[in-house]
């Protein structure tokens, strides 16, 4: 089997869709099978996965934390689309200062950047796989 490189795009939000959960299961299996993940890109409603403030009941899985742990453990870059994020209140310290907002909530190791990083994945990765919500 030839190892392939992947960009994963998540557009469904945690708890209103299963997209982040399905994407995480897929991502784990990719690494087990010897493939590489170039980048995870959160777009549209998917940016809500990067909220450090999501606090589900203690007997439910915390998808943002699960994803953050997976990304950090495997040193996989993860980008949150800036336009999608600002609309939905996902804010890092730079944007907090720029827009003079009362707080920030971007979960590490996610970073905020533009669609250019998705375009790059589209060009460079062997496969781009989308995980959508249900709208």
């Amino acid at each position, binding site marked *: 089997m030839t190892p392939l490189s992947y960009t994963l*795009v998540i*557009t*469904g939000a945690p708890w209103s869709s299963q997209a982040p959960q399905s994407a995480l299961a897929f991502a784990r299996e990719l690494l087990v099978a010897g493939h590489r993940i170039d980048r995870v890109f959160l*777009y*549209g*409603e*998917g940016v809500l996965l990067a909220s450090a403030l999501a606090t589900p009941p203690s007997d439910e899985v915390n998808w943002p934390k699960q994803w953050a742990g997976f990304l950090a453990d495997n040193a996989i870059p993860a980008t949150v689309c800036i*336009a*999608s994020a600002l*609309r939905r209140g996902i804010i890092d310290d730079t944007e907090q200062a720029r827009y003079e907002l009362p707080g920030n909530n971007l979960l590490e190791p996610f970073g905020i950047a*533009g*669609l*250019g990083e*998705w*375009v790059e994945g*589209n*060009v460079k990765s062997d496969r*781009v796989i*989308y995980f*959508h*919500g249900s*709208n």
Partner: protein
Amino acid sequence: MSTLIIVDQPPYGTWAGREALDMVFSLAAFDQPAALLFTGAGVNWLRKQQAPDAIGQKSVEKNLSAAPMFGVEEILADTASCERFGLGPEQLVSGVTLAENLQDVMNAHSNVAFAG
């Protein structure tokens, strides 16, 4: 390598379509060949004389008319969906190509994506 972005969401009531348009504009901005296909309720994007002021939204007609300027290669509309939503050629904004066979359209692109 060319990318086809498919919009199957109506222009108002969800942001998925607008975010699909941003994707196609970004591809074009980075000189990547890109085209748009509207199908299902998404064909309503292509309706002339939209007036969304009453719901406090901007008309997507303007965004869309910028597509050729940004370098988006083609704007396609699914003929069957246009018929279903009562969109005759005279109700469509200019610059739209009708597509009968969506399979052919998708086969003509190396990447195919929905925004959400």
